[in-house]
């Protein structure tokens, strides 16, 4: 099994470590001030943004309702253009399929564009373990490959790494790098990475990319990048392999471009990504460039089980990352704390759907339900409702914490019995009031360490409203 291990069970510990990591905190601070501000600007410039969200939601809902039909139309059109489609039920099947294609092509070097589903199925480790030299061509992915880390964000995978750390990483990994060569500016770093990557593009027999969309009517795949690395990856190698999960399907080119108008705006706050590249089968006789063979590996890995479930809406996700860019919890702890491939609010729903709620029960609980993710989600995915649904499934497990659960149970028991409730709360308020008298706050409170360790607890004003109201206004 190659799929990545999850550390979601230790989310609270992961989060604590992240909060104490000063370098990470600085990087997260920059993220919060970057993308959300740019997104707000470009959204304000597009009056039909809200209408586009509704249209995009309808397109995806329609696609999901007829996914079986569109997948078959898509396959027929890929075959018609000379390509091959491979169906993979599981992560393992997908990895084996990719490896077999690489072996058939006699590949020793493989270039790879950024792909979250490749992370999900553990493709990187699978290629590495089978003696294939894998070169990540997205700058962020290249950096974390050298650092031997997973991505901490779905569109800026190295967001947790500072410029100084990147320079150190390059100096450690790049043989023959002149120690006098400056690596202080972004430009220096990009140039250094480009020099190293150029030779690999030409050496690679196979180029692997993900897909932002698979288009049924044409059998095309679309990728968007800002670095152009995807184009080089898929056109310079002899063999292009597209690895994509089933829900990337969309009926027509027009539909894809409607959704593309939302994608970059929601994601990086660009109107459009720098490169939007459409691929259609292998190189034809008159084409100037392109691969000799074109393969698509269609990955299910849990998607069909989500169809028709309470979590089907999650399959509308286009991986823009707006939810995590705007999430105060993600902003506090970063992506690695979530413990698996997909972080932030979308991860809090997708992770339990793909690896099970028993493994990832913390994630849907680790939200204040502030709703900012839903507000910015271009596909109008009801993220908080689905997190709540997962909380219902995991309520009896310990992710809730045994003490909070007992307290809540007691509260619910009392709150269903107004007379008893009034009697007991009157007493409790009196005690708290006494304990806080003279200070206005309690520095410590029994059974409330989680609150009072870092905060004072404001003492009650005195008396309950219901008592005071009854005394003031006898009815």
């Amino acid at each position, binding site marked *: 099994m190659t799929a990545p291990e999850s550390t979601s069970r230790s989310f*609270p510990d992961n989060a604590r470590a992240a909060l104490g990591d000063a370098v990470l905190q600085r990087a997260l601070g920059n993220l919060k001030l970057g993308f959300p501000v740019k997104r707000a600007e470009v959204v304000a410039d597009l009056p039909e943004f809200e209408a586009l969200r509704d249209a995009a939601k309808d397109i995806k809902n329609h696609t999901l309702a007829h996914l079986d039909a569109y997948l078959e139309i898509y396959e027929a059109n890929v075959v018609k253009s000379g390509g091959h489609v491979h169906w993979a039920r599981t992560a393992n099947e997908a990895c084996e399929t990719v490896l077999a294609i690489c072996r058939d092509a006699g590949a020793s070097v493989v270039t790879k564009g950024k792909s979250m589903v490749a992370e999900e199925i553990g493709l990187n480790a699978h290629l590495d373990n089978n003696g294939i030299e894998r070169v990540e061509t997205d700058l962020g992915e290249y950096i974390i490959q050298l650092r031997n880390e997973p991505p901490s964000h779905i569109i800026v995978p190295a967001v947790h790494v500072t410029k100084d750390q990147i320079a150190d990483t390059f100096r450690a990994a790049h043989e023959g790098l002149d120690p006098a060569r400056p690596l202080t500016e972004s430009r220096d770093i990009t140039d250094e990475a480009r020099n190293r990557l150029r030779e690999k593009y030409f050496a690679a027999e196979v180029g692997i990319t993900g897909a932002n969309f698979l288009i049924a009517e044409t059998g095309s795949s679309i990728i968007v990048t800002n670095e152009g690395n995807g184009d080089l990856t898929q056109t310079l190698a002899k063999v292009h392999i597209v690895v994509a999960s089933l829900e990337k399907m969309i009926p027509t080119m027009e539909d894809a471009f409607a959704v593309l108008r939302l994608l970059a705006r929601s994601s990086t706050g660009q109107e459009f990504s720098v490169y939007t590249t459409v691929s259609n089968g292998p190189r034809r006789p008159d084409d100037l460039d392109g691969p000799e063979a074109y393969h698509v590996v269609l990955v299910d890995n849990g998607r069909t089980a989500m169809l028709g479930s309470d979590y089907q809406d999650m399959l509308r996700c286009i991986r823009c990352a707006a939810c995590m860019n705007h999430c105060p919890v993600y902003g506090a702890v970063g992506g690695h704390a979530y413990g698996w491939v997909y972080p932030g609010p979308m991860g809090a729903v997708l992770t339990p759907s793909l690896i099970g709620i028993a493994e990832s029960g913390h994630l849907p609980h680790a939200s204040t339900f502030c709703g900012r993710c839903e507000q910015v989600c271009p596909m109008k995915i009801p993220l908080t409702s689905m997190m709540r649904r997962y909380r219902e499934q*995991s309520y009896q497990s310990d992710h809730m914490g045994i003490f909070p659960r007992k307290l809540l149970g007691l509260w*619910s028991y009392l*709150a269903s019995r107004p007379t008893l409730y009034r009697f007991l709360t009157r007493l409790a308020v009196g005690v708290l009031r006494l304990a806080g008298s003279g200070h*206005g706050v309690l520095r410590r409170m029994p059974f409330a360490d*989680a609150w009072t360790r870092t905060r004072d607890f*404001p003492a009650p004003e005195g008396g309950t409203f*219901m008592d005071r*109201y009854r005394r003031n206004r006898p009815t």
Partner: protein
Amino acid sequence: MSQDEARGEKPPIKVGLFVTCLVDLFRPSVGFSAIKLLEGAGCTVEVPPMQVCCGQPAYNSGDRAAARSVARGLLDAFDGSDYVVAPSGSCAGMLNKHLPDLFAGDPELEPRAQALAAKSHELVSFLVDVLGVTEVSAAFEGSVAYHDSCSGLRELGVKAQPRFLLSKIAGLELRELDEAEVCCGFGGTFCVKYPDISDAMVSKKLADIGKTGVGTVLAGDLGCLMNMAGKASRQGSRVEFRHVAEILAGDPEVPAIGRVK
């Protein structure tokens, strides 16, 4: 025909005040401020005695059965009210946006939950949007920031209304927080389930408050206010925290949250 109608006047609007647990237990004066504001706008206010809690803590924790048993009492308690008004965006949001879901599929209770949802409002938006209040008679000297509580802001669209009414108070200078729409880290049970993350969030919020230099922070939800006031107290900050209704009703003689006179 009632006497009012006979005189050509509209009968007063009958508002049921949903006090909410936190106001009942921790800050009763907010309830009295709410009554003062509603009566001042011409409403008759009733406080049904059998009300307790909207069930939100259980609902958001994933215990639907407990949430139903708690919220069930409100369906009876507010049967006779034209409107139900709460001095809380989060409790009003629970009634207005989630109650029908909570009772979905129950042939008897679902329609009643829908009816209650349809007539439920957050206090300040009710004053402005439904009653059309444009003036307040309160006075206040000093600079304040209004903290947007997440549920009120995103579920009920409470943003302009409190700022509009606060702008009518002579002597009150309103300043905006950086990242005003970011959560303070309370999140109901979140603040005790993940106290470290919650603490990081409220610390950030207090840093933003500090940057404005305001003396007072107002909000429409006691949960957020107790979280921020508790952290401010621990930090030794002098900023005061109050429910917006207290200022709008002109009742600042009550000590600020977590303070003594």
